[in-house]
C-alpha cells in the first residue's frame, strides 16, 4: 500500500525525523493562504501516488504569491501518468547545500532490510541504479541487531564531503529504520535528504510503502489509503478472496492460482490475443467466488470473450462448474466463454456444464487460448 508524501512525513515527524512544516491544500485559495502563512518563497508539490512528478511539472518553486497561485492552478487537477492531482503541499523553499538518497527495502537476496545510501540524491534512484550502480552503497541490516548507530555513521562518512553533518544524518537513518520495522514497510525512502543553509539535515521528501500482508497489525492505515478507480476494484476484489487486476485487453480470464493465471495471460498473448485482466480465484472451492469473478468480468465493458482455466488441486472443478451455473442463472452472459477444466473432479465439472450451449470447452491451455482468440475474431 502506497501513501502520499505528506502522510509519510507525518509518520516521520512522529519519530522525530526532521521534516519541513507543510500545508496540505486541495484548492488554489488554500495554496494562496499557505503562501501567506509561510511568508517567503515556497515549493508547491503535487501529491500523487506515482513517481516522476517532478519531470511531469508537479513540483514548482514559487518566489511570489502570484507564482504560487499559478502553480496551484496548474498542478491541482493535473494528470500525472494517468492520475489526477487532487492535493498539493506547500512548504518553504529550502536552500540546499547538498543532497543525498536514503532508502530501506525488504531485500529478497539478503533476506534482510537493505539500506541504500547514495550521494546522488534528488534524482530518480532507479536511474542511478542503472547507470552508476557503484554510486549506491547497499548494506544489509542484521534482522536481529537492527541498524546500529555506528553503521549509520560509517555509511555517511563514506558519502558525505563534510563529517560535521554525519551525526545528524545518522540519527535520521536510525529513526528511519525504526519507522520501517515498526510500521511494517516494504519501502521507506528519503530522496533527497538535504543539508540546508543552516547546516541542518532534513528529510525534504518522503516515500513510504506498507506491506499489504501486515495491514492487519495497523488498522489505522485504512484511513490513509487513497486508491484510484482500478485500485479500488482490486481492493474490493481482495475482500472477496479474489486477486484481480484490470488490464487493457478484450479477453477476460478466470484462473485458479497466480502462476497459472499469469501463464494463461501469457498464452493468450502468445497466440496473438490481449488479456483484459489478471484474475486468480485462489485455492478454495467456494462457488460464490466464481460468481463474484464472473461479475467482475461482465462489468468490464471491454471484455469480448472469457477464458476460464482451472487446474483442480484443492480447487474442485465441480465446485467451479456449480459456481458458473449459479452465475449464469444470475446474469445475462452473451459473450463466448471458453472453459478448460483439469485435475480434481474435472469429469464431474464437465458433466455439470455439458448442457450449456454458451460454453466452448478445451482440453489444454493451448487449445483454450486458441479457441478464445478465435471466438473474438469472429
Amino acid at each position, binding site marked *: 500500500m502506497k501513501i502520499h508524501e505528506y502522510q509519510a512525513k507525518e509518520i516521520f515527524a512522529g519519530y522525530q525525523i526532521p521534516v519541513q512544516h507543510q500545508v496540505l491544500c486541495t484548492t488554489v485559495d488554500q495554496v494562496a493562504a499557505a503562501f501567506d502563512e509561510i511568508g517567503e518563497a515556497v515549493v508547491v508539490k503535487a501529491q500523487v501516488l506515482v513517481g516522476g512528478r517532478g519531470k511531469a511539472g508537479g513540483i514548482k518553486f514559487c518566489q511570489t504569491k502570484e507564482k504560487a497561485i499559478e502553480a496551484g492552478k496548474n498542478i491541482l487537477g493535473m494528470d500525472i501518468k494517468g492520475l489526477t492531482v487532487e492535493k498539493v503541499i506547500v512548504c518553504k523553499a529550502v536552500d540546499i547545500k547538498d543532497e543525498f538518497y536514503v532508502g530501506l527495502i*525488504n*531485500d*529478497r*537476496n539478503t*533476506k*534482510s*532490510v537493505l539500506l541504500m545510501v547514495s550521494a546522488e540524491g534528488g534524482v530518480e534512484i*532507479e536511474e542511478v*541504479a*542503472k547507470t552508476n550502480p557503484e554510486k549506491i552503497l547497499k548494506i544489509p541490516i*542484521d*534482522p*536481529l541487531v537492527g541498524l546500529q548507530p555506528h553503521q549509520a555513521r560509517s555509511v555517511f562518512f563514506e558519502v558525505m564531503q563534510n563529517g560535521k553533518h554525519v551525526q545528524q544524518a545518522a540519527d535520521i537513518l536510525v529513526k528511519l529504520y525504526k519507522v*520501517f*520495522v515498526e510500521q*511494517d514497510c*516494504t519501502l521507506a525512502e528519503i530522496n533527497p535528504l538535504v543539508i540546508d543553509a543552516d547546516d541542518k539535515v532534513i528529510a525534504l521528501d518522503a516515500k513510504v510503502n506498507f*506491506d*499489504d*500482508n*501486515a495491514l*492487519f*497489525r495497523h488498522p489505522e492505515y485504512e484511513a490513509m489509503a487513497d486508491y484510484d478507480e482500478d485500485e479500488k476494484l482490486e481492493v474490493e476484489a481482495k475482500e472477496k478472496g479474489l*486477486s484481480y*487486476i484490470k*488490464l487493457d485487453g478484450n479477453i477476460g480470464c478466470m*484462473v*485458479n*492460482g*497466480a*502462476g*497459472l*493465471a*499469469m*501463464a494463461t*495471460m*501469457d*498464452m*493468450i*498473448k*502468445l497466440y496473438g490475443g490481449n*488479456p483484459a485482466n*489478471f484474475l*486468480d480465484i485462489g*485455492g478454495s472451492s467456494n462457488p460464490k467466488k466464481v460468481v463474484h469473478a464472473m461479475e467482475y468480468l461482465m462489468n468490464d465493458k471491454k471484455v469480448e470473450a472469457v477464458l476460464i482455466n482451472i*487446474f*483442480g*488441486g*484443492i*480447487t474442485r472443478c465441480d465446485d467451479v462448474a456449480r459456481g458458473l451455473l449459479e452465475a449464469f442463472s444470475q446474469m445475462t452472459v452473451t459473450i463466448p466463454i471458453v472453459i478448460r477444466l*483439469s*485435475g*480434481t473432479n474435472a469429469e464431474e465439472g464437465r458433466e455439470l456444464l455439458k448442457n450449456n450451449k454458451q460454453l466452448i470447452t478445451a482440453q*489444454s*491451455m*493451448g487449445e483454450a487460448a486458441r479457441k478464445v482468440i478465435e471466438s473474438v475474431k469472429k
Partner: protein
Amino acid sequence: MSILINKDTKLVIQGITGRDGGFHAEKMKAYGTKVVAGVTPGKEGQNINGVPVFNTVANAVKATGANTSVVFVPPGYAADAIAEASEAGIKLVIAITEGIPTIDVIRITPILERNGTKMIGPNCPGLISPGKSMVGILPTMIFKEGNVGLISRSGTLTYEMVNQLTTNGIGQSTCIGIGGDPVIGLHYIELLTLFQNDKDTEAIVLCGEIGGDAEEQAAAFIKEHVTKPVVAFIAGQSAPPGKRMGHAGALITSGSGTASEKIKAFEAAGVRVAKEPADIPLFIKEALKL
C-alpha cells in the same frame, strides 16, 4: 532417492486443529506421509483421526521424534510457529501460510540459520517425493514416481507442468513449490544443488515467474555448477510493470524482474525455455533422449 522428504520423513502439523490443517492432514496421511503429530496450543491430549495433538512443537518432537514440520498457522502467528519448530530441533519446515508480513520472515531467518533449519515457503503449496511422501497441499493424483526434479515459484502452474510431464509418461523425483513471497526459505540455487547431487534425478524443470532476479542468479549458477539438463518456463511475460500479480513477489519494478530478462539469462546459460507448458515434456524427452 529424492530430496528433502522421503519415507523417513516424520511430520508434525502445526495448526492441525484448524480447517486447512485438518483437511490436508488427511490428504497427506492418505498419500502415505508419516504424520506423527499435530500442534495446537491448548489442545494437547486431543487426537485428530489418530494423530496426537501437542501444546508445543518441543513436546511433539520429544514424544514422536518428528523431524519435519508443516505450518498452517494464520499469518499473524505463523512466523513465531516456524521459529518454534526451529528452536525445537525441526530441520525442515514447510510454511504453507499465505500473507505473512515480510519483516516477520526476515526476523526469523537468522533463528532458522543458527539452528540449521531449512524452510520451504512461506506461501507455498509444499513438496512431494512421489510414491514416498507429500508435505503440503499438493493434488497427489497428478504426480508419478520418476527421475525429473521440479522447482516452481507457483502452485497451480506447477500442477499444470507436472500434469504435462505425467501424462507424457515422465515421472518426478521431487517437486517443490518454493512459494511466491519476496523473502522465502530455500530457493533455486539450494534446490538445484540438491537435485544435482541426487543420483535419481536426471533432469530438472525450473518454473519461474516475474519479479526479483532469482532466475538470473539460478541461470548463472546452472552454467557453473549444474551438469544435468535443465528446462525452464517463466510466467508473467504479459504482466504490466508495477502491479503485484497475485504473488507478493511477482512485481516488476522499474524495468527489472521482467520475463524477457529472465529468459535471456536462461538461454545464455544453455537452459531451454519453454514458450508454453506443453513444451516442457518435449524438451525433457529430447534432453534425456527418451
